[in-house]
């Protein structure tokens, strides 16, 4: 059985819920099972928000993340709130701005927000850069299906921008694991 429990966290408006939906959809395009859940309400619009995705070749019963394999965090607040419960052999992917403290868990600290804001010049693609990084490092889904899933979810006219964001995010991740 191949199973991954993923938690994406950040602040409301960074698009991580959509990011989680895209990851889950990519897994389904690959013929796997996937379940996506999220935090709702005011916290989804500001403060710390999270989206969780479980991807498995098996049936998924309980839909919430219990043993987190892959943890993404884009803000300090969300890191502090949601980083508990990451497995010892799991991985944490965090924005370069985050102070992670001492951790036995493997941490990748990358300029995700900077890349979206300054390299691509579009803060709205932060989530796409981020899931590109997650996919490159974790290999939970292939780059090809992820691109297909991204294109299913982005507004008309932004396809090229999002493809580029995914490409850059993916390279960022690939370089980090080299």
């Amino acid at each position: 059985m191949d199973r991954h429990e993923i938690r994406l966290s950040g602040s409301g408006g960074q698009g991580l819920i959509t990011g989680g939906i895209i990851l889950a959809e990519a897994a389904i395009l690959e013929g796997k099972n996937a379940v996506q859940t999220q935090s709702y309400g005011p916290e989804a619009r500001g403060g710390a928000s999270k989206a969780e995705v479980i991807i498995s070749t098996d049936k998924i019963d309980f839909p919430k993340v219990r043993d987190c394999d892959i943890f993404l965090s884009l803000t300090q607040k969300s890191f502090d709130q949601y980083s508990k419960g990451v497995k010892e052999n799991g991985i944490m992917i965090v924005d370069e701005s985050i102070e992670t403290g001492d951790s036995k868990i493997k941490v990748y600290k990358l300029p995700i927000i900077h890349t979206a804001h300054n390299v691509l010049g579009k803060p709205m693609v932060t989530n796409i850069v981020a899931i590109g990084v997650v996919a490159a490092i974790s290999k939970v889904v292939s780059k090809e299906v992820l691109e297909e899933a991204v294109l299913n979810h982005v507004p008309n006219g932004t396809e090229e921008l999002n493809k580029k964001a995914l490409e850059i995010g993916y390279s960022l991740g690939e370089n980090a694991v080299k």
Partner: protein
Amino acid sequence: MKSKARLMQGNEACVEGAIAAGMKFFAGYPITPSTEIAEIAAEKLPRVGGKFIQMEDEIASMAAVIGASLTGSKSMTATSGPGFSLKQENIGYAALAEVPCVVVDVQRSGPSTGLPTSPAQGDIMQARWGTHGDHPVIALTPSSVRETFDLTIRAFNLSEKYRVPVILLMDEIIGHMRERVELPDAFEIEIVNRKKPTVGRDQYLPYKADEDLIPPMANYGEGYRFHVTGLAHDETGFPTNSPAMADKLYRRLMDKIEMHKDDIIQWEEENTDDADVVIVSIGGVSRAADTAMKQLREKGYKVGTFRPITVWPFPEKRLLELASKVKTFVVAEMNLGQIALEVERIIKDKAELKKVNKVNGEAIYPEEIIARIEEVL
């Protein structure tokens, strides 16, 4: 052929199911965590020639649904805790006047505004007894996105068949969760429509039941010119103060569900054959129960699961059979013991009852059920 598998949210599956069942009218009012149902219905209904209306409040939504159903439109509303409370008077109206309709309640924490976006299962008893007086009701509880699709269709079918409001009792976990589903093609789906009168206006008695205790139902606008009231009425549909007529009506309303229990009641069970302990749960909690059961089985414990799919009427007969061989039932629910009350009533002292309850706005985790069972074993 391209796979039909899609990622779909529970609330979306509810609308897909409703449209597949033939829903042509939806009236609602925004409330978390059911709002996506209204949003998606607003988008999809006019595309199939149906009607969506956002009413001024929950009470009006329920009223409009009944009005629409009387014209022959399959109708639905969706809400959550506080809104479900507000709909209750008119749910009673639908029960008494025997107007088919589907009421979705995506349960959230309560009472009152509670924890508005958090999961709970506190409306089990409200679904049964929310409106005043004795009345029939059917409530169904899905535990997956695909089952939400299937049970929404079933809710429409049962409401049409038995002329009764059917409550689709979801919870936030199932409503908001997205997962992989493959929906059936239209030809694979069984659709039930209300029984129509076979006689003309002069012979039509709108509340004269057939042997199955269900009266045929005419639509407004077809020339039957009949009267519908929330007052106790006789077979003609007009108010009566006759104790005999009132008694006959109220008993028939309850009996029409009792008589067809075997058709209405569904449940699912796993590993109950040799089980010492059976976990009883519904909806989102059943997902934790399944995980708990599998993990305990791996450890060699004889644990099974029992999941009422029809929660009202409760699968009493089967639970009673299980009670003769199961040592302990562990009822896990996101409330302080509502299903447990029903289980307790049924099993009496035939088996032991243990509870796992959670009301802090978080889901029950498999570990919590496992811990409780390990105490027992």
